[in-house]
């Protein structure tokens, strides 16, 4: 069936020269321009009527590419390949629209025009397609902004420089520098290739140097020099390979025993597959729909048996239920994750510290889709297994001494979080117009250790007791620069050494 959809504005369809019926005698008497226009209009209307009622057979004789001085013709041909196999006018229109969109998506052209022209007169029922591109004059672009990266736990300030189409294969090179709110800094350079050799899917490669400072929470700093290869990236599926040389150090020399034993170098080689489906109507304030993300990682796929070996699985399920008044909706979410090592002696082997699950932080559970991470009311890395740090000086007797600040949080191997969030518009119109809304929430989460034979001590009762809970209400203020939440959070249940606090909290996230 023909889809009568509005063509993309850049598609210029020149129907005036199309002559389908060879037998039709042209018996146009000499006419004025007005009558010619009237005739053309009548012919067009006739064609559209015909297209809407029946299949108009047509095939493409030739695809002519113009305007590519630097871009390799093979790249453009690959993107418009579908045009050559059309068998009807309707298919041709659809394929032309898709081809135009694909070429636009390469982000290396200033404009793309797909023109449908009549084929050679001696070949009836054929059409020539002319693809005209205007390559970007300015191949270097710079960018600075606030982004949320999929791997990041919070937003980051990022500046990047892009170089487009340097080799003519639609390659986009970029160098970026970013600084995150959670003491993360990264410098990286990468390249994205829409077509690499015979692969249909685009391939990306990135080399990055990442530095994260966890001294305040876990008494270690992490530096990672990594190479990432994006092997498959579609709407729902993402497959990437990562090879990283990771170093953990403790310049403060205050780390607890478990962290001390993990300091040093390791090589991480893992495949990561992400399946994502998001049918919610908004990623920031969903009022209907559902979303599901599953991430699987297999570490240790490297010829050297001394690389870090683990299997990690996490999932995140969300559902938004509209209530039918004041744009109110209830969002439910449950997320979980487990990690364990593999290989000889895996029962007694601890999981590498940076790969474990950590819960805590003020990021909104509604907006952060991607596994168990946040639990409102608890500070970053503020719950779960912990150990006392190295003792220096006689501090225990001091007034105001906070024992939890002298502990390192080690993360866990099994993490589960759940939340329920009721969002609603506020009565004032000025607030509604600015999309400032209120919400009430309840969260629960658990983080336990399984490795090094800890699972033997874990009973169902103990696991149930390991769940922390919090509840509260707040105000959400989306602005152009930030998305801000002001929440009053009440801790319903916490463990002895958790870093949690009842009171007003602010959190900031990316506006997108």
């Amino acid at each position: 069936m023909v889809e009568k959809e509005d063509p993309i504005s850049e598609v210029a369809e020149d129907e005036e020269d199309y002559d389908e019926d060879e037998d039709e005698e042209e018996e146009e008497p000499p006419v004025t321009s007005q009558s010619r226009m009237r005739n053309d209009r009548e012919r067009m209307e006739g064609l559209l009527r015909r297209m809407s009622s029946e299949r108009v057979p047509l095939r493409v004789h030739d695809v002519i590419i113009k305007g590519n001085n630097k871009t390799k013709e093979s790249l453009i041909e690959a993107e418009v390949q579908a045009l050559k196999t059309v068998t009807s006018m309707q298919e041709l229109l659809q394929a032309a629209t898709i081809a135009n969109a694909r070429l636009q998506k390469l982000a290396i052209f200033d404009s793309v025009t797909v023109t449908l022209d009549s084929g050679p007169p001696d070949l009836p029922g054929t059409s020539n397609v002319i693809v005209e591109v205007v390559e970007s004059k300015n191949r270097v672009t710079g960018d600075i902004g606030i982004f949320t990266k999929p791997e990041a736990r919070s937003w980051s300030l990022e500046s990047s420089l892009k170089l487009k189409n340097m080799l003519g294969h639609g390659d986009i090179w970029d160098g970026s520098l970013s600084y995150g709110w959670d003491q993360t800094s990264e410098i990286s350079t990468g390249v994205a290739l829409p077509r690499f050799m015979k692969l249909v899917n685009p391939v990306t490669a990135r080399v990055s140097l990442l530095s994260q400072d966890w001294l305040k929470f876990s008494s270690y700093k992490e530096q990672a020099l990594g190479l990432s290869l994006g092997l498959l990236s579609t709407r729902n599926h993402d497959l990437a390979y990562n090879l990283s040389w990771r170093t953990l150090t403790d310049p403060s020399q205050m780390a607890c025993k478990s962290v001390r034993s993990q300091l040093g170098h390791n090589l991480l080689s893992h495949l990561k597959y992400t399946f994502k489906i998001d049918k919610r109507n908004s990623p920031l304030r969903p009022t209907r729909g559902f979303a599901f993300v599953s991430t699987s990682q297999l570490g240790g796929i490297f010829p050297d048996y001394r690389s870090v070996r683990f299997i990690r699985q996490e999932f995140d399920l969300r559902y938004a239920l509209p209530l039918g008044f004041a744009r109110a909706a209830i969002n439910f979410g449950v997320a979980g994750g487990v990690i364990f090592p593999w290989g000889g002696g895996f029962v007694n082997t601890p999981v590498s510290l940076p790969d474990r699950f950590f819960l805590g932080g003020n990021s909104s559970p509604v907006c952060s889709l991607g596994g168990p991470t946040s639990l409102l009311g608890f500070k970053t890395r503020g719950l779960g297994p912990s150990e006392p740090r190295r003792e220096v000086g006689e501090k225990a007797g001091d007034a105001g001494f906070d024992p939890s600040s002298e502990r390192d949080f080690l993360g866990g191997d099994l993490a589960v979080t759940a939340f329920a969030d009721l969002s609603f518009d506020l009565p004032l119109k000025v607030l509604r117009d600015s999309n400032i809304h209120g919400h009430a929430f309840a969260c629960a989460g658990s983080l336990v250790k399984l490795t090094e034979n800890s699972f033997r001590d874990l009973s169902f009762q103990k696991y149930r007791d390991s769940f922390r809970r919090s509840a509260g209400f707040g105000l959400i203020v989306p602005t152009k620069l930030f998305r801000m939440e002001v929440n009053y959070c009440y801790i319903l249940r916490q463990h002895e050494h958790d870093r949690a606090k009842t009171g007003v909290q602010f959190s900031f996230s990316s506006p997108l």
Partner: protein
Amino acid sequence: MDEAIQSEQQQHLTLVIRKACFGLPTACPSCLPVYIYLKFANVPFDLSYNLTFPDSDHFLSIESTKDKEKLLLLSTSVNFCDVSLDLQHLCSLADQIPYVDTDTYVAYNNEKGGVIESLKEDNIVNLDAGVQNLPEWVSTMAMINSWLSDAILYELWVGSDGSSAHKIYYSDLPWPVGKLLYLKQVHNVKQLLGISKETAERREEEIYRRATMAYQALSTKLGEESFFSDNRQVPTCYIFLPTSLDAFFLGHALITLYALPETSVLRGKLLEQANLVKYADKLKAEFLDAGSSSPDPSSSSVPRRGPSNWGKFRVPVTNCSKPKGQPKRERTQEEKSFRRKAKYFLVTQMVAVLVFLSLLGGSDDTEVDADGDDGFDYDG
């Protein structure tokens, strides 16, 4: 005293060193002397290995005058009177590993002059009580920790093919990581020892000459005795008991004899001193090859010495200074309250500004209807 508790604490003392190889409990020149020292003192300890941090040291670059001044300041903090230490020893003190720890107590090698000095200062074990102020003992120690340390450093990283160093430090790291770290360390050692294309030959000759002189001096000093020092604590008779000097030299000798290849020049020079070789073999058999890492104190062949105080071992909580940064200033309750209030004030002001901007500028409604309308992707 609560000897049961103390005994339990003693058993929880853990020594973290680099891996065992070449028939030695560890072949790392920084780690083996500490191991031997604890064995001499008959202190029960558990052994743990760190296999992934070969470069836990931070070699100081001595390119600038400022760095040299830093080194001089560092050297004054070490308790060796009137001895200017060789740079290598100063830099080996920057190595975190080895370290001795319990749950919350740690004696790192790069604090307070080293693990052995920390153990002395924290009254855990002290074998040097009667000798550590004697000039001859001090200068012998300085000679071992400078000339012989330089020599073993040179031999491991520059003078040989590097196979020994690779086995000691990198055999448990993945190949690419180990290889790159090894190359980096070779470069660092050459820089530290002042070895370049122009000076390589001269420095090599100087290092070996000093090592030879040190061996000869030590051979003369040792004679036929069991250890290098006599215990002046008992003035009426001279009892030769091990001190940290023995620990440092024995560590050096064992690594030279067992870890270096047979073609090693340094090894050849040590083999020329028969009494030193006999001393090393004898002590290795007595202390390293016999028994576990936690021997029964009652069966020790080394008489217990008063100053070691290991029977009164208690995990100390000491004011050890952090190698970097200023000591944290204790905040009073008033200061904390003031800071909290100031923080709330600033945040409130910022919130007000943001709300004002938001109401003034408005924000885009980011709701997007997703009716299952498939966009263009590479699945199509």
